[in-house]
């Protein structure tokens, strides 16, 4: 059900753009209005969500410790898996954010002894996620050339590197291919592994279908319909400089691409895609394990009802005296309590 719903939603989006631009001629709406709204919603939404998370305090230090703690001087600490300072925590976060270290932990290289010897490499999820996110990043950077004039040097460098393997004209970007492969893997995995299918929700399929279609339309515009890049750049710069223009002669496929990207931007802040921001705020990862030697204050700490020693002694005084335990008040100093006899 979730799969079909997500698929229908994406097809509907494609059709909307196709009919909107191709038939109804709503070029301005799909070329300027929607992308502008999308940008505002995206930026506003992300800021809103992060602020909303930030509004809730972190009362306790609850890092998941994955290595030896800082302890006696002769026991080496595992500084990356169990950081005790800010810098070490930054190191842990860098590994988490840039290399998906926790996911890498998932399964290890294994050589099994048994009837036969073989390698078990269950790093596909980690590899596909890493490939997906990095290709996405490179593709984003490459798209910067539509928004900048002059185009910064690193964008050129990345383009050159990415198009290293000259296949056809225009040159095939490696990241385009890997991106599509990775998205396909992540999707297929969700469809065929019963465990995952069982836990998957429509909002797990939707972004994958969406990204798959964005990738496809992007590739179509670049390699097949060969959209006029200069006109696209005019459009892009127009939007971010608040002087929107919609040049004639940009194909409908481009508008579909743009519309889907806009949808992604609007969808992003209100979905699980916010994990991109959430990881930075995750209290089991971004805190040093230092609460034994550094005081932390819980902003909403409040007094609670406790059972004081005085109450305890009042309750047990006779028995304590009888057992020879020291007491604060001797039997004759304290008011007589009837509680002892009722104690079960």
């Amino acid at each position, binding site marked *: 059900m979730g799969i079909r719903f997500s698929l229908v939603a994406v097809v509907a989006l494609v059709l909307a753009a196709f009919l909107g631009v191709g038939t109804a001629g709503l070029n301005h709406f799909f070329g300027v209005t929607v992308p502008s709204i999308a940008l505002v919603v995206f930026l506003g939404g992300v800021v809103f969500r992060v602020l909303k998370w930030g509004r809730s305090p972190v009362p306790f230090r609850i890092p998941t410790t994955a290595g030896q703690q800082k302890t006696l001087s002769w026991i080496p600490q595992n500084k990356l898996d169990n950081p005790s300072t800010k810098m070490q925590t930054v190191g842990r976060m860098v590994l988490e954010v840039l290399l998906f270290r926790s996911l890498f932990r998932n*399964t290890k290289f*294994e050589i*099994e002894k048994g009837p036969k010897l073989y390698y*078990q490499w269950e790093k596909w999820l980690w590899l596909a996620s890493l490939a997906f996110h990095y290709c996405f990043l490179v593709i984003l950077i490459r798209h910067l050339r539509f928004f900048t004039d002059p185009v910064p040097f690193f964008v050129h460098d990345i383009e050159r590197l990415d198009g290293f393997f000259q296949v056809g004209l225009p040159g095939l970007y490696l990241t385009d291919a890997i991106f599509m492969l990775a998205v396909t893997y992540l999707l297929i995995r969700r469809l065929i*592994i*019963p*465990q995952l*299918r*069982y836990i998957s929700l429509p909002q797990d399929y939707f972004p994958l279908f969406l990204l798959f279609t964005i990738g496809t339309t992007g590739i179509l515009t670049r390699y097949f319909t060969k959209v006029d890049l200069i006109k696209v750049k005019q459009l892009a710069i127009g939007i971010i400089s608040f002087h929107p223009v919609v040049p004639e002669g940009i194909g409908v496929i481009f508008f579909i691409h743009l519309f889907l990207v806009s949808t992604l931007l609007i969808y992003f802040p209100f979905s699980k895609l916010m994990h991109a921001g959430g990881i930075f705020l995750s209290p089991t990862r971004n805190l040093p394990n230092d609460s034994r030697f550094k005081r932390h204050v819980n902003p909403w700490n409040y007094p609670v009802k406790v059972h004081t020693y005085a109450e305890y002694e009042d309750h047990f005084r006779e028995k304590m005296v009888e057992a020879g335990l020291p007491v604060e008040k001797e039997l004759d100093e304290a008011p007589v309590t009837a509680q002892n006899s009722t104690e079960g």
Partner: protein
Amino acid sequence: MAIEQYLLKHKKSLAGQWFDLLTGTYPLETVRLLKKETNQFANPVGHAFLTAIDEILDEFLGQNSAEAMWPLLDKVIRIRAIQEFSPSSSLVFIFDLKMLARGVLEEELAGGLIDHGELSDFDRKVEALALLAFDVYMRCRENLFEVRMTELKNRTNRLLKLVGNE
């Protein structure tokens, strides 16, 4: 050639199908884990089943001594005895052997290499195995309750000693 010999010839397929049926009693999502995960520590149940089935078949089609069989059955039944199964569904896998044997021996049966007398002898052997499995199952359950009792005793053992009860 005896029916056991024929079955030994098909042991690989027999064991595979038996394992499939056994893991098939778990939820679909779990079946994949039980079958695919090869690390015995990441998949203790699947690993125990896989190795035990092989050993049970060897023993069953070979010596078939109750003494040797007991610990092999125990490997599987000890797990199922504490899982979310009724006693009957814990042990149903033993009876699966009858159906599986008929399946893998299809050609031999059609070719008349095995007669009906042999087949019904085999069925009785499976039934005997099931009875043994029942004993193992009961032993595991008794064991479970012994464990409960021992724990309860351990909890207050010192108190009893203190007041001179033990």
